[in-house]
């Protein structure tokens, strides 16, 4: 009896007879997921009936050293839930309670077995939906979605699972229940472990609860069905739509074979003579939908579309989608066997790649059907074959592999949403180098040192799990070694100019050694490698605007400045993608992008920041509301590890689930895990027009009502920013005058749309009270932390507060009272930030001699207020005396996992020592 099978008896005692399956016939019903080419009969199947069951089973496995594979609905297409013959298959599909629906905070809390579609169905009566919509959404479960970072057609506009999960409860590989992430809040202090976990394919633990972000239902939805002579013309149309900056909710392509298969299944009424069809879905405010749809129609026509049909009622839309969503399995009707691939390519390469696939298929005498997320460049070539014909399966597999290699060769990825699983493990080595993979495995080492969680999936491990892959630093010598005591270049004048107006204690301060400015990746790598061999402590620095953030400026032996490692590496305007070196100033990048009518949707909340600094701190401004946080815009990252090894994850395509998402982990890591060298971002077109509605609520009640209105509006506002002076120690009085808050709402779009929507918005706000005025431009303070905008009084301390959406008004009301101890300060404090997200900055004034203690009390009471409201408070920057009195980060969710990640990436704790994690590691 195997060790796994020996667990049957104790697990039966624990979970009951019915929960444990060990007879061969029934075990075989769990032998595969949606990828049937791989079948393995598990040693044991355990049906968990509760989260506690999951914990108990994993704990037993950990004790016995038995591996486990978690499984939800078993619909994955990469073999992610393929059992191990000597392991336990842990089924969580019975955990299907919708624990909470919280429309006011735009969240749903669910168990992992809850079916994706059920979330949208349950939240629809409240006016909300859950955006990620894999084609299997009627059957796939949230737990599986989280594991695979599932996508779907509407991810073009709304993003993937990782952009919609704000909190998780996981059972770690050691069998402990741990809460991660912000949950009701948009973010949590510390490392983004939720970002690391989503898409890790069950190799880091088992998700037992997820907090999902809900999206307001659009006011209008229309679907355009466009028939084209062939995929060439359809591809041209897709590229033209993307390049024109039109953002539909979804753009799907189906070629002739796929149309035939779908028609055979659901008679969806696709054009009979078309060589390819595009499904273009547009949603949003009614006026915008009409505009966008007209533009999409015009482009389709110009690209050679024949039949154009618009489905505007739910029933006909549903039929069009049913054809699309059934297409994979419908292949069974036109072919005995098929292989589904999931490659991603830059959208500009669609025509070329599809033509090449067709050529290769003709060469091999095989048919390839294409049905895919064209707007994302996420191909799903279905290689059709008949296994009963000798040699055909081998040819099909060969062709399928070749298609993935083609995707890699044009700068794409091997998987956009299905995951690596077991199927694409071999391709990972073609997509990534050994150093990249070994770096990803550091995450695995941190979460699952024993290697028991879903072994052999997601990231190939050349060596036994638990052994970190470290370069021998001794073989490195070079200029950096000598450079350490005497830096080769003094800070440049440009560098000095980047220091902000408001002098920060520590920034460019006395304790830090001078900065070394590597001018190549090789230099950067050697510098870190040498530092490793010499045991030097290293601090990475961009423009130096936030060196003393998140704690006192770390003591370091060497400051590595990135400001000479700058410049745009690649900007493909029609793909809306940029690759840029870390030392590039955001402003410089924006200037170049603006020339192409594009933007990186990130705000320079602290003027002068570099790209590296922006990613490392992960700070967000107004644009987060529409475009997401920095983490959501990252496509790929190149980093230099503490040991000097250069590694990258992700790529330059907009959809990519190959390997662990290191970019999420590094975003907001404050330089504690490695040095960011280069970043690939998703870009957005600059809006044709902007308008601002300034709203002045007359009371706290009106503020709360107005923010609730803004959270629910279907007018697609781009930002909701609150700015309020915290005048004195009393609660905000219910009268107007100075100290009353201003809420500024940004709208973007065409001139006609923006003016109509601004008017409509004023109407909606009238219901809440207050006064709403239209403005052409943003206020001076827009997108800057308090104290940094031109009109701001100087402030000494900056905090970042994250609270649930519905608590923002309450935070504004009670913050002044929490700061009662600061009365008498020279200038008032200020609360400013994204009220539509629930992430705000709070600035506190200097309070004179002996002020540190009073400030510390103020911080403590703000932190307890935030905690009471379900949120958190982080001290971003403060005088050193204050940092000596307060913990900048406060309690961290998953602190021990964060420490483990830190220890895996920086075992000697030499990077930004003392910041965020080192003290805890």
């Amino acid at each position, binding site marked *: 009896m195997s060790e796994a099978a020996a667990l049957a008896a104790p697990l039966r005692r624990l979970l009951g007879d*019915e929960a444990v*399956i060990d*007879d*061969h*016939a*029934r075990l*075989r*019903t*769990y*032998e*595969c*997921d*949606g990828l*049937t080419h791989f079948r393995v009969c598990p040693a044991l199947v355990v*049906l968990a009936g509760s989260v506690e069951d999951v914990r108990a089973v994993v704990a037993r496995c950990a004790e016995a050293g038995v591996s486990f594979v978690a499984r939800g*609905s*078993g*619909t994955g297409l990469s073999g992610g839930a393929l059992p191990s013959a000597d392991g336990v298959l842990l*089924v969580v*599909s*019975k955990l*299907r309670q919708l624990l909470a629906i919280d429309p006011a905070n735009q969240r749903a809390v669910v168990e992992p*077995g809850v*079916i994706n*579609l059920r979330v949208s169905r349950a939240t629809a009566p409240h006016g909300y939906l859950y955006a990620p919509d894999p084609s*299997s959404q*009627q*059957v*796939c479960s949230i737990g599986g979605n989280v594991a695979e970072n599932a996508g779907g057609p509407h991810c073009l506009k709304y993003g993937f699972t990782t952009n919609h999960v704000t909190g998780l409860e996981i059972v770690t590989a050691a069998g402990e229940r741990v809460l991660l992430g912000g949950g009701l809040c948009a973010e949590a202090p510390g490392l983004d472990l939720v970002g690391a976990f989503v898409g890790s394919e069950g190799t880091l633990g088992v998700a037992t609860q997820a907090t999902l972000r809900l999206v307001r239902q659009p006011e209008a939805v229309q679907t355009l069905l466009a028939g084209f002579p062939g995929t060439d013309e359809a591809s041209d149309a897709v590229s033209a739509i993307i390049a024109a900056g039109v953002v539909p909710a979804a753009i799907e392509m189906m070629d002739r074979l796929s149309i035939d298969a779908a028609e*055979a*299944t*659901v008679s969806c009424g696709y054009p009979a003579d078309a060589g390819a069809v595009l499904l273009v879905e547009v949603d949003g405010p009614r006026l915008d939908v009409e505009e966008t749809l007209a533009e999409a129609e015009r482009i389709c026509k110009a690209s050679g579309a024949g039949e154009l049909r618009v489905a505007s009622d739910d029933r006909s839309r549903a039929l069009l989608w049913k054809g699309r969503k*059934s*297409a*994979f*399995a*419908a*292949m*069974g*009707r036109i072919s005995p066997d*098929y292989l589904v691939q999931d490659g991603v390519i830059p959208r500009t390469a669609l025509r070329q790649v599809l033509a090449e696939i067709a050529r290769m298929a003709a060469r091999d005498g095989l048919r390839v059907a294409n049905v895919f997320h064209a707007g994302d460049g996420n191909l799903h070539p279905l290689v059709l074959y008949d296994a009963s014909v000798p040699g055909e399966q081998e040819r099909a597999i060969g062709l399928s592999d070749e298609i993935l290699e083609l995707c890699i060769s044009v700068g794409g990825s091997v998987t956009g949403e299905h995951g690596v699983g077991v199927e694409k493990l071999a391709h990972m080595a073609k997509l990534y180098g050994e150093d990249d993979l070994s770096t990803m495995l550091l995450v695995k080492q941190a979460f699952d040192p024993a290697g028991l969680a879903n072994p052999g999936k997601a990231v190939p491990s050349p060596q036994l799990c638990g052994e970190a892959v470290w370069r021998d630093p001794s073989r490195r010598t070079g200029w950096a070694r000598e450079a350490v005591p005497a830096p080769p270049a003094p800070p440049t004048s440009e560098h000095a100019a980047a220091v902000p107006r408001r002098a920060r204690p520590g920034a460019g301060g006395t304790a830090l050694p001078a900065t070394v400015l590597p001018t190549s990746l090789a230099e950067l790598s050697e510098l870190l490698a040498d530092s490793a061999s010499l045991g030097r402590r290293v601090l990475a620095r961009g423009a130096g605007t936030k060196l003393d953030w998140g704690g006192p400026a770390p003591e370091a032996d060497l400051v590595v400045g990135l400001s000479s490692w700058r410049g745009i590496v690649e900007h493909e305007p029609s793909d809306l993608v940029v690759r840029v070196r870390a030392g590039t100033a955001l402003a410089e990048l924006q200037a170049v992008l603006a020339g192409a009518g594009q933007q990186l949707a990130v705000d320079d909340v602290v003027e002068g920041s570099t790209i590296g600094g922006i990613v490392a701190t992960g700070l967000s401004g107004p644009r987060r509301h529409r475009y997401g946080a920095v983490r959501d815009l990252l496509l790929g990252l190149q980093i230099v590890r503490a040991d000097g090894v250069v590694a990258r994850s992700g790529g330059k395509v907009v959809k990519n689930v190959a390997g662990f998402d290191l970019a999420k982990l590094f975003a907001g890591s404050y330089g504690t895990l490695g040095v960011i060298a280069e970043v690939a971002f998703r870009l957005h077109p600059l809006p044709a027009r902007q308008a601002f509605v300034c709203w002045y609520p007359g009371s706290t009640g009106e503020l709360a009502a107005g923010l609730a209105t803004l959270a629910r509006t279907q007018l697609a506002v781009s930002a909701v920013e609150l700015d309020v002076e915290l005048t004195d120690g009393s609660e905000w009085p219910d009268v107007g005058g100075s100290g009353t808050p201003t809420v500024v709402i940004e709208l973007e779009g065409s001139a006609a749309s923006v003016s109509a929507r601004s008017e409509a918005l004023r109407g909606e706000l009238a219901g809440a009270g207050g006064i709403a005025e239209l403005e052409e431009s943003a206020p001076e303070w827009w997108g800057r932390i308090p104290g940094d905008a031109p009109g701001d009084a100087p402030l000494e301390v900056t905090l970042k507060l994250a609270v649930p959406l519905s608590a923002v008004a309450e935070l504004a009301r009670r913050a002044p009272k929490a700061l009662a101890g600061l009365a008498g300060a020279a200038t008032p404090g200020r609360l400013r930030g994204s009220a539509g997200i629930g992430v705000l900055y709070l600035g506190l004034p200097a309070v004179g001699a002996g002020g540190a203690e009073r400030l510390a009390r103020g911080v403590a009471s703000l932190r307890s207020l935030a905690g009471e409201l379900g949120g958190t408070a982080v001290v971003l920057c403060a005088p050193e005396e204050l940092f000596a009195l307060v913990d900048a980060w406060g309690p961290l969710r998953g602190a021990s996992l964060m420490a483990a990640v830190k220890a895996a990436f920086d075992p000697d704790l030499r990077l930004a020592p003392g910041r965020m994690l080192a003290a805890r590691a």
Partner: protein
Amino acid sequence: MSAVPYLRAGARLDLDRQLVEDCVHCGFCLSACPTYALWAEEMDSPRGRLLLMRSAVEEKSLQASAVPHFDRCLGCMACVTACPSGVDYESLIGETRAQVEAEVRRPAAERALRSVIFAVFPRRRRLRVVTAMLAGYQRSGAEALVRRSGILARLPGPLRTMAEIAPRLSRTSRLPEIVPAVGTRRGRVGLLLGCVQGELFPQVNVATAAVLAAEGFDVVVPPSQGCCGALSEHAGRRSEAQRYARDLIGIFDRAGVETIVVNAAGCGSVMKRYGHLLAGERDASHAGEMAGRVRDVAEFLDSIPRRAERHPLPLRIAYHDACHLAHAQGVREQPRKLLAEIPGVELVEIADGELCCGSAGIYNLLQPDPARRLGDMKAGHVAETRADLLVSANPGCTMQIAAALARSKTTMPSAHTVQVLEASIAARPVSELTAGTVVATTPWRASRAKRAAGR
């Protein structure tokens, strides 16, 4: 859950491997499957059952542990509707059940129950005796006493189910051999009475004949017709089903009708598959030909131009898709269309309407617990509609949902689609439908009904 039955040593399952391998394991069937809805376990899902079949075929050995999972399948065929790959699950589960029945020895109590069921339900005369007893039980006041006493809750599952689901029987006229068309004759159709429909819901047959006649058809009702074989086929009693099928084919051969109209979804679904049921037999092609002439009553009525005038019925109707109509026969739109055409009718959809109510032929007798839970789920969704009337096209569904509604202390009258049509055509007041007292009185009644009334 039921005990694992005993299987003959060396038991095998021989299926067309190609059919089994048509499944691509996409899982789209999971959300459609009632047993998966209950337990979320692969063994009790369609693709899981297909894997049980597959392993039995591949390994040339049928395991006893697989049998309860085949037994628990309701045969609702919702998975067939959901399947994008077109797996012929209906044939596979039918074949599997037939082979399992040949190899299995079930626990004694279950064997006894099955033999009672198959001795009574497909035999109209015996069923009539039981229904007569039932009517007496209801009218004597004993039923009220029993329901009040709480005895029901202590009865074994199957008995309790039977006692609960039995409908209120109404005294009604029985049909003559021929019901003539009203006005110009458009054609001649045969009518299947159905065992349960005929005995427990005779008013549905009367309404069917009345509507068909009003639309201009002579309705032939062969008096000697027996069971269609559906209950037997769905339980794997294939040779018994084949016998019933042959008898019925002979009877309708002699009736000389073009179309055979059926108003019970379960019966229609099997009769349309007579060609499959008798596949390999020498009369297979004849059976297939006859199957091609079977129409559900809604399907038939929708296929002809309307003639009889529809009078208004101000009613909010929740239409329940009987699985054997919607999934097995693909008849969904036609009954909705017929009902919606009636002036004043407002049709409302039942949430999760594609999910079985748990009746499934005799499933609620053999698997009372899951059937009951499914019934409660369905009743919940039906109650949410706040409709005036529940309309369904299958007697089993009607009984099952009515019983579940009663358990949840909800009252909603129910009727068959044709009863609503009949009430509209005959310009009856709504109250007759909602009070459940509709007894069709049609023009033929004057001439022949008296003779027929005594039957």
